[in-house]
């Protein structure tokens, strides 16, 4: 195997791949053979299905033919007569007919079901001798049924075909039963036609098969394995594999049904699997051997190659693992790897890689420390707001991160502007020290101390600010311009400065310095300082903004204080305006009434619409009535009535119809009761169609006028009743129109009296009349779901401002209705309080009540609990105003479920009050 050592890795890999290719080829061979075998298997299954279908067809055709035979035999001329005559005559007919039948057992029974003759056809008696006939089969025949069915019996399935023997008028004479056992001969017959063996089961038990054993004896006991019988007898078909007499078969099973659909047995066909099994075994054997050989070869080869490859790779692997653990000093010895191939190259590259990795890691650690510091500085910067504080934090961070001797930050004062708002050009920026930290001084510098240390460097800083460019000096001794200044500030090493820029402006300068003992600043230090510079610039900007905002908010507070003073004085003015508003209330009361009138008119229009629709409907119905009345009048005309009777009938109809039309329709129960009584009475009077006529009469309510109608009904009840019905309906429709017109008149009348505008005129009036008028007008609001209960006492007439008081009722009832939200009861109660000389009107609703906290306020003008737009809040204000005008009082008593407004008015009327007041004034004057 030494040649393998010399091979390059590519060759080794190629060899391995070609070995691996062997496996798929072997697998493909296995798969293709298996597909072929599955095809064969499926073909066999399909053949079994087909054989089963044909077998079933053969069985059923035999069964069906037996039915035909029974029917043919039953309809043999003369058989019916012969059944009655008994054996000799019957025997003659049978002897003549039986040779035409296939082999079967034939029985003839008489019309009582007793067997009167029995013959075995085509076979010997012993074959059919002990087959009984189930009683159900004979009974079906006696019930004129032609029936073929399968029943288990004697350990076999037996086909029975029964047919009634009838004479030409289909009267029953007897029955013919033809029976055939599905026995060995039958099975052989099916096998002969089918070419495959069959098995027959009675229920789940093996009954018969066409299989013979080696000695030629029939095999009976081939029971179906497992749950096959259970599944097949539940109505399924299925296939299984079985070995019978040493041979393998595919068995297809199907159930056999009797005529009622019950599964009484099974049919199975057996298709031999010998050839298929042989082919399968051979294929399996050769495939197994071939596959095993190929695999053994491939495995041996693969094992060898793996060994050659795995050792050096294993070492590389171990090295990589060591590096992963952090042992960066790991080296791979050159001798470990094969110097000739890629693995050797890999080992060398690996060693170099670890070295540079080590270096990079060190660098990375340094950067990491800086970034952490930077992050901390950033966090510190963003957590403080005062400029000085921020600057101190930044300088501290810089000093710590860059390990400086000195770190100082100068701020540039705002640049001076020219008169045109331009920055003065070429101006030397003015710097002042913001914060500094020096290793020589323990705490951050303040006051004189800071100036002492940083002053020498301020010129240097100014230069950086003006040039807007970072300056890095590795050794101050070699920079004569700054040497003295730097040394004065305690720096004898390197110096680094960067400008702080915000947008276009330089806002400050950062300067750091190190002692000569420390390493000089690098480029990385410079960019780090620039990043600090950016942060510092941002922080300075933020801090400045914060200062500005604070100043602004102080100004704002002052403004608010001023504004509050102004508002207080305005409020006082508003109070005066409200007083004026109250003065204009009287005018508003009037306009509220006008608005109310508008919605009133809409309501009234709606109210009038319903009766007019009713009139329209009634008029249509009326014309229909007239048409039908003319038709029924013709029918009445054709009745054999004498002239007198006819006149009497017409007069009666004339009298009845208007009266019945006005009559109230009874309850359904009453109607049914009346109908029963009237129908019974009519039936007793011998009137044809009593049922229909009676119902017709009760429908129009004529049950009380039955006696007067009876003689006429006797002549022709249907026409008379129909005429009366139509005539009554005609009047009913007319009444409907009349009522609707009355209703319209009532509404118009109420509206007139409600709105008569003789303002401020006192009239002696009946309060109930006003309340009723109001209810009529509000009817559209109340009619759905609100019940009005009137509890009127005896009231004297009272002098009042009629129209204004109507508005009181309107507002109170309207409010109650709204509180009820369309469902509930409103009680209107009136009473006379004689001792007090008052009348009281109470409007009570069972709504949710008025909350205590607003009860005090509801009489205030503009106070409303309704949603915006629903009301102006003037309603109850007006009520109080009007009642006051009458010298009366209005009070409220509200709880959940009962809210009562009580209006009390003086019996003597408003004039009495005026007179009283005048009298009072007079007295005072006096």
């Amino acid at each position, binding site marked *: 195997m030494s040649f393998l050592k010399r091979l390059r890795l590519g060759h080794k890999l190629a060899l391995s791949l070609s070995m691996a290719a062997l496996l798929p080829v072997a697998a493909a061979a296995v798969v293709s053979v*298996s597909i072929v075998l*599955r095809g064969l*298997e*499926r073909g066999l299954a399909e053949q079994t299905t087909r054989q089963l279908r044909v077998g079933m067809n053969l069985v059923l055709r035999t069964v069906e033919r037996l039915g035909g035979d029974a029917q043919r035999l039953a309809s043999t001329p003369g058989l019916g007569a012969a059944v009655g005559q008994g054996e000799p005559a019957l025997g003659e007919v049978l002897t003549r007919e039986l040779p035409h039948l296939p082999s079967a057992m034939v029985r003839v029974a008489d019309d009582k079901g007793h067997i009167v003759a029995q013959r075995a056809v085509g076979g010997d008696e012993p074959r059919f001798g002990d087959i009984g006939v189930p009683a159900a089969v004979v009974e079906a025949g006696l019930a*004129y049924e032609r029936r073929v069915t399968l029943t288990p019996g004697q350990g076999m399935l037996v086909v029975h075909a029964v047919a009634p023997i009838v004479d030409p008028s*289909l009267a029953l004479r007897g029955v013919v039963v033809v029976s055939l056992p599905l026995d060995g001969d039958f099975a052989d017959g099916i096998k002969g036609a089918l070419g495959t063996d069959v098995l027959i089961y009675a229920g789940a038990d093996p009954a018969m098969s066409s299989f013979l054993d080696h000695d030629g004896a029939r095999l009976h006991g081939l029971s179906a394995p497992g749950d096959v019988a259970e599944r097949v007898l539940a109505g399924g078909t299925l296939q299984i594999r079985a070995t019978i007499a040493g041979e393998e078969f595919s068995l297809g099973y199907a159930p056999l049904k009797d005529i009622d659909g019950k599964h009484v047995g099974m049919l199975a066909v057996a298709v031999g699997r010998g050839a298929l099994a042989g082919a399968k075994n051979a294929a*399996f054997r050769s495939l197994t051997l071939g596959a095993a050989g190929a695999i053994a070869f491939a495995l041996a080869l*693969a094992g060898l190659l793996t060994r050659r490859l795995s050792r050096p790779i294993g070492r590389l692997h171990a090295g990589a693992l060591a590096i992963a653990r952090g042992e960066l000093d790991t080296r791979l010895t050159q001798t470990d790897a094969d110097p000739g191939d890629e693995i050797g190259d890999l080992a060398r590259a690996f060693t170099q890689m670890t070295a540079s990795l080590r270096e990079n890691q060190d660098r990375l650690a340094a950067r990491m420390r800086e970034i952490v510091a930077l992050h901390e500085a950033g966090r510190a910067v963003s957590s403080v707001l005062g400029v000085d504080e921020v600057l101190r934090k930044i300088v501290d961070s810089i000093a710590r991160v860059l390990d400086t001797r000195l770190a100082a930050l100068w701020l540039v004062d705002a640049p001076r502007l020219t008169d045109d708002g331009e920055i003065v050009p070429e101006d030397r920026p003015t710097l002042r020290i913001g914060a500094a930290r020096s290793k020589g001084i323990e705490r951050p510098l303040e006051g004189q101390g800071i100036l002492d240390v940083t002053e020498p460097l301020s010129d240097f800083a100014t230069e950086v600010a003006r040039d807007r460019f970072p300056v890095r000096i590795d050794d101050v001794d070699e920079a004569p311009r700054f040497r003295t200044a730097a040394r004065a500030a305690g720096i004898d090493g390197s110096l680094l400065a960067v400008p702080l820029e915000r947008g276009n402006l330089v806002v400050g300068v950062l300067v750091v310095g190190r002692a000569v003992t420390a390493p000089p600043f690098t480029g990385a230090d410079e960019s780090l300082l620039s990043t600090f510079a950016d942060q510092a610039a941002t922080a300075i900007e933020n801090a400045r903004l914060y200062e500005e905002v604070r100043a602004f908010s102080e100004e704002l507070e002052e403004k608010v204080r001023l504004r509050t003073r102004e508002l207080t004085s305005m409020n006082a003015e508003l109070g005066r305006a409200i007083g004026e508003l109250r003065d204009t209330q009287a005018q508003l009361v009037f306009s509220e009434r006008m608005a109310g009138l508008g919605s009133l008119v809409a309501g009234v229009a709606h109210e009038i619409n319903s009766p007019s629709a009713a009139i329209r409907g009634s008029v249509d119905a009326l014309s229909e009535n007239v048409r039908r009345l003319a038709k029924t009048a013709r029918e009445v005309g054709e009745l054999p009535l004498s002239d007198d009777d006819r006149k009497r009938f017409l007069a009666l109809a004339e009298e009845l119809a208007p009266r019945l039309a006005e009559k109230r329709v009874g309850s359904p129960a009453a109607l049914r009761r009346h109908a029963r009584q009237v129908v019974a009475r009519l039936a007793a009077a011998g009137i044809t169609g009593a049922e*229909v006529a009676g119902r017709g009469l009760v429908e129009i309510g004529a049950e009380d006028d039955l006696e007067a109608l009876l003689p006429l009904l006797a002549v022709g009840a249907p026409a008379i009743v129909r005429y009366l019905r139509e005539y009554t309906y005609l009047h009913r429709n007319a009444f409907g129109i009349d009522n609707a017109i009355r209703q319209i008149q009532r509404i118009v009348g109420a509206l007139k009296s409600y709105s008569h505008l003789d303002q401020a005129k006192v009239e002696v009036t009946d309060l109930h009349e006003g309340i009723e008028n109001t209810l009529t007008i509000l009817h559209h609001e109340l009619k759905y779901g609100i019940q009005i209960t009137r509890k009127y006492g005896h009231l004297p007439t009272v002098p009042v401002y009629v129209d204004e008081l109507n508005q009181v009722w309107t507002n109170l009832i309207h409010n109650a209705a709204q509180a009820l939200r369309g469902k509930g009861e409103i009680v209107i109660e009136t009473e006379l309080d004689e001792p007090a000389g008052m009348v009281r009107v109470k409007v009570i609703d069972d709504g949710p009540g008025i909350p205590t906290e607003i009860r005090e306020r509801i009489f205030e003008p503009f106070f409303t609990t309704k949603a915006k737009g629903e009301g102006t809040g003037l309603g109850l204000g007006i009520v109080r105003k009007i009642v006051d005008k009458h010298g009366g009082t209005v009070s409220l008593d509200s709880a959940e479920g009962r809210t009562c407004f009580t209006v009390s008015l003086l019996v003597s009327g408003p004039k009495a009050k005026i007179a009283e007041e005048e009298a009072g004034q007079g007295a005072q004057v006096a």
Partner: protein
Amino acid sequence: MARAGAAFALLLVGCNLFGSAEPRTRRESALVVGKARDVIGLDPARVSDDESVEVCEQIYEHLVRYAPDSTAIEPALAVSWDVFDNGQTWVFRLRDGVTFHDGTPMDADAVVLSLERQRDPFHPSHEPDFIYWRDQYSYIEKIEKVDRLTVRIKIERSYAPFLSSLAMFPAAIVSPEAVKKWGKEFPKHPVGTGPFRFASWTPGDRVVLERNPGYWGAAPPLERIVFRSIPDARQRLVALEGGAIEVAYAILPEELQYVKLHPDLTLHHVAVANVAYVAMNTQRPPWNDIEVRQAVNLAVNKVPIVRLLYQGLAVPARGPVPPSLLGYAPDATDYPYDPDQARTILAAAAARGAFDPARRFSLYIPRTPRSYLPEPEQVGRVLQRNLEEVGIQTDVVVQEFGAHQADCLAGKHDLCLYGWTADNGDPDNFLKILLDRDELRVGPEQNIAFYRNAELHGLLTYAEETFEQKERAEFYRRAQLIVAREAPWVPLAHSELAVAARNEVKGLMLHPTATVYYQAAWVER
């Protein structure tokens, strides 16, 4: 690892190799139906053959429909309706959001067009062969749109069975766009709202319907139905056995037992709303005598007729109304076969001069078989013998159906054998037409018993004007009691519709209107 994988793969292959192979099953949920004839056309307003009606019923729907197992009425394209104006105005609220198969919305315009094109001879879509309107809907005065989803139908008089007539196939709602687009060719391009939509029609071979994916009701389980025409009955059965078709119609009577015994097949059957009967000419003696008529009822042996001459595909009739209809009276008198009692009654009638045993009477028999009467001549001969056995001598007159009908309507017969199939599935359609005299009758004249009874007339008139179903049912029940007592007929049989199907076909709905609905059918594989 590679080693283990290879061995594992080989093992799997080995397993498959020796697993048993099941025969492949068909996957698509399609159903193939074998019928004796092809359809003629698919415009519901002018179909007249059972095949076309049945296909139409899968494609189209009506304002209302029959319940699955009776002729009771349910909402369909109309969700509700109100009756006004003493039953002369019907207002239907239509189902919202229903569209025709072509995407046209089903609305009031569609309903108006579907019915007005039949009613109005001047309608642009009217065709002269809209044959059902004059016969069944002539009392409809106007169909109007009220708004997008409301339709008002005015009828001449108060007539409750109107609702049932709307469930009948000619009242199907068709796509107005399709009617306008196809004109006279519409029967070849049917568009409805039903659970299935039309896919193709190869005349003489097959009609294919496919599932309506936008159906408003429960989606039908079947994706496709293929109605194949296989004229040879035996061929149909062979195709059914072999699985080429899944449902077969019109099985030969002698094959019924074969189907019943076959383990793969099921025989489905339903009593159809029809009736076969013997009518007695009640206007002439001796049939004007109620006792003589009752004796005739006792003389006829119905059971062997049903079992032997209908091949078992019928049920004995108790009266004119089939059991699946509203108001069927199961308690009506059913005369038993009692020839002795019949003879006794006839002897008494002869004694009081109401019956002359020496006279010979005419018994009219049609020659043409009908679905309700498959063996008219044989039935006629059995009747003749049954009557002879109780002493009624008859001469049989056998004629083609046309002549038979003309003679019976002219009242030439003493007794005649006749039958009737429901139009709209309403009991009015049986009782009023077959046993009442009324010029307001809807449907053809057929009271060949010339029977008149004022009470019956009153009950039927009331029933027509009553809209409460329970009340109507009661009127019809009483009407049947009167008919049973007065015995103007010998009711014989209500025949059955039978179809054979493979066991895996489920959910077939055989309706008393002799239509099979496939809406809920599926194939269990």
